[in-house]
């Protein structure tokens, strides 16, 4: 079942445009939303939730039109914009006490369970939490109102590798045998290698790929060759060609592989795909 569908989202800024952003996410999967800083990840997420006034486009959550039924759609969504950074002086229990009132499905037992599991002390204030703990607290809130769709904007940025790994494992655990899905934006491609089923890649406000991670990785190859092998016939097919003293490295669509006879062909990964595509 389709949990989130975004169709032709447009938003015009003086110096930046979100152009016809479309993608969808099925139930039970994790989608990584990647792109450079300023590519439009946060703007897209905010437009989906109508925090940013979109110029056109439709968003549906579990088949319901977001614009028409904002209340029902938001009940299903747990939104985490970074970690929690609002009301830093307030205690977790106060924030939770205010938040729970908005959700008829709030499960108090589940909430205290998540606090224990994430080792969160309800008498601490938000500012006393580390970045990783803030994300976990935001997750505890989202999970306790039984959100089906978790939308997380850069939840792993600023975390140390151990906390990051911990969080990614948690993501996988959360969607296992459940009706939940997770959409999370990141610029750390190794996060996605670990847990994303699907990748949506945004560049300068345009979605350039939204597909299964393995399909995306398989659709490109990393090729290396000497300067002599960099022929005029080959050059237009190369993506983000980087020339060195000894030769070149570039990305090539798998479909164009026949052109690469005699060159060193390696499998690509998300990082090399991103680096070469952004070089274009």
């Amino acid at each position, binding site marked *: 079942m389709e949990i989130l569908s975004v169709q032709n989202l447009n938003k015009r800024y003086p110096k930046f445009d979100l152009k016809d952003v479309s993608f969808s996410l099925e139930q039970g999967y994790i989608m990584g939303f990647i792109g450079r800083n300023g590519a439009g990840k946060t703007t897209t997420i905010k437009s989906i939730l109508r925090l940013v006034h979109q110029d056109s486009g439709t968003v549906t959550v579990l088949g319901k039109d977001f614009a028409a039924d904002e*209340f029902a759609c938001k009940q299903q969504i747990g939104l985490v914009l970074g970690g929690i950074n609002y009301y830093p002086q307030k205690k977790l229990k106060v924030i939770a006490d205010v938040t729970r009132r908005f959700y008829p499905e709030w499960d108090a037992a589940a909430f205290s369970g998540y606090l224990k599991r994430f080792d969160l002390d309800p008498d601490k204030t938000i500012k006393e939490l580390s970045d990783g703990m803030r994300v976990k607290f935001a997750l505890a809130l989202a999970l306790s109102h039984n959100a089906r769709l978790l939308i997380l904007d850069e939840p792993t940025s600023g975390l140390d590798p151990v906390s990051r790994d911990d969080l990614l494992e948690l993501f996988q655990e959360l969607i296992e045998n459940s009706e939940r899905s997770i959409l999370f934006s990141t610029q750390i491609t190794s996060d996605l290698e670990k847990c994303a089923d699907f990748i949506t890649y945004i560049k300068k406000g345009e979605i350039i790929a939204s597909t299964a991670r393995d399909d995306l990785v398989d659709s490109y190859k990393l090729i290396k060759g000497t300067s002599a092998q960099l022929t005029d016939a080959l050059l237009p097919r190369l993506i983000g060609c980087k020339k060195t003293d000894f030769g070149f490295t570039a990305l090539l669509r798998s479909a164009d592989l026949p052109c690469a006879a005699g060159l060193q062909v390696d499998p690509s990964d998300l990082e090399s795909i991103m680096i070469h595509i952004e070089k274009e």
Partner: protein
Amino acid sequence: MKELLFKEFKLALHPTTYLFLAIGALLLIPAYIYYVAFIYTCLSIFFVFLIARENKDALYTVSLPIRKRDAVKARCLMVAIIELSQTLIAVPFAIIGIRINPNPAGNVAGIEANMAFFGLVLIMYALFNFIFLSQFYKTATKVGGPLILSSIALAIYVTAAEAAVQMIPYLKTHLDTTDPATALYRLPVLILGIIIFALSLGYTYRKSAANFEKVDL
């Protein structure tokens, strides 16, 4: 809406606002421009917006299952609750003030704290609310500009209201007194104040919500 109001009072309101509610005690001063007591409340409302902004309230609030305009409605209601509470709390101080300061010349600094005055205060709040809130929700971040604009409007309004009462003989004899014999002349001003306050609140909400809808958070 009650959840949102709970949020406003629990998170956005600084406890000093409750202290400010008792500022009607200034009506006990024998000679004073009594409007000042109520202008302090405008300041405490300004602090609510300042604190909410510094605590990134808007992003938290709109991530909850509400519409953007509900956030504005809750804030408008909260402002009205603060203003009306403070006005009601000021009434006993006004009554006590008249009794303990039996000054035949009355309040020499400005209008007496009578029914008409309370009506004029409600009109002042109506003016403040409209300018401050509708201007604030154009950006949802800038609080200084709306405060300056609304302060200028308030200064002009209070000066004009005081000048009219002091300089127009009919208003001086009927409005600037606590003489029970002329109380009936002051009642319409109070009623007018209540009506303008209520109408302004509705219009302020609509205008502010429309402005906030266009803001990109």
